[in-house]
């Protein structure tokens, strides 16, 4: 006799179910869209901006690969002097030098884009005034220089 559990003929009814959410629609894009001119817009520098964007994103992966190499270098310290010295000797090999050149270019590109980005995304207030974006960007470069000199002095020696 429960009015909630059956229809007029006494058949059980289920609560009206919400329609399942349709799968999200993604406009199909070619995986090489960042090389093509189809996405050119007046607000960007054309296709080059997308290529540079992709290089910026991938620079972080190259930096991580260098850090893996560097971690192996430091791990060799616990294997004794002979093993460590042999690893440091491989720094002289052309392939390793090339790897470091690519890593350095990536790290510099990452740093420059990161400091430039700070001027766009960060708002720093000092009292009632806002620090101008140009000074934030400059501050990043100054910090970069100070940190580099400090680490260099400690690592290479005074």
């Amino acid at each position, binding site marked *: 006799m429960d009015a909630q559990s059956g229809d007029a003929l006494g058949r059980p009814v289920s609560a009206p179910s919400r329609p399942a959410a349709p799968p*999200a629609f*993604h406009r*199909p*894009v*070619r*995986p090489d*869209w*960042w090389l093509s001119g189809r996405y050119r817009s007046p607000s960007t520098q054309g296709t080059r901006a997308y290529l540079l964007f*992709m290089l910026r*994103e*991938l620079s*972080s*992966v190259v*930096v*991580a690969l*260098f*850090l*893996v190499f*560097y*971690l192996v*270098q*430091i*791990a060799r*310290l*616990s294997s004794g*002097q002979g093993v*460590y*010295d042999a690893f*440091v*000797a491989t*720094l*002289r*090999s052309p392939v*390793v*030098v090339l790897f*470091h*050149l690519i*890593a*350095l270019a990536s*790290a*510099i590109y*990452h*740093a420059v884009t*990161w*400091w430039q980005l700070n001027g766009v995304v960060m708002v720093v207030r000092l009292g009632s005034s806002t620090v101008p974006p140009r000074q934030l960007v400059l501050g*990043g470069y100054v*910090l*970069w220089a100070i*940190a*580099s000199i400090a*680490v*260099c002095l*400690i*690592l*290479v*020696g005074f």
Partner: protein
Amino acid sequence: MRNVRSLEPFWWFLFAGGGTVAALLVTVHISVNLLVGVGLLGTDTLSYGRLSGLVANPIVKLYLLALFALPFFHAAHRLRGTIRDLGLHADRVVGFLCYSTAIVGSVWALAVLLGVP
């Protein structure tokens, strides 16, 4: 598998910290290695005695842990976004794999640093 998106602010914080660490500190470490590699600095610059002495310092260990771990998470976050931008819509799985790799790398760094006497 935990939905990685529910931790978005956490990943973003690590991404931002890692980007700053990578921008501040990585170029100088690459440069010193490179200068030794091309012979402008002697291999004694990175000598076993000097380096193990430096890494034995707990503050240096902490510094190196940040130098390794944070940029790992930064790269994981950017790689996750790049894979999505390339048109692969499997964000949960890709995010899980990217951040897991960063966690493994960070634990490895911790183990290495604790292993150097």
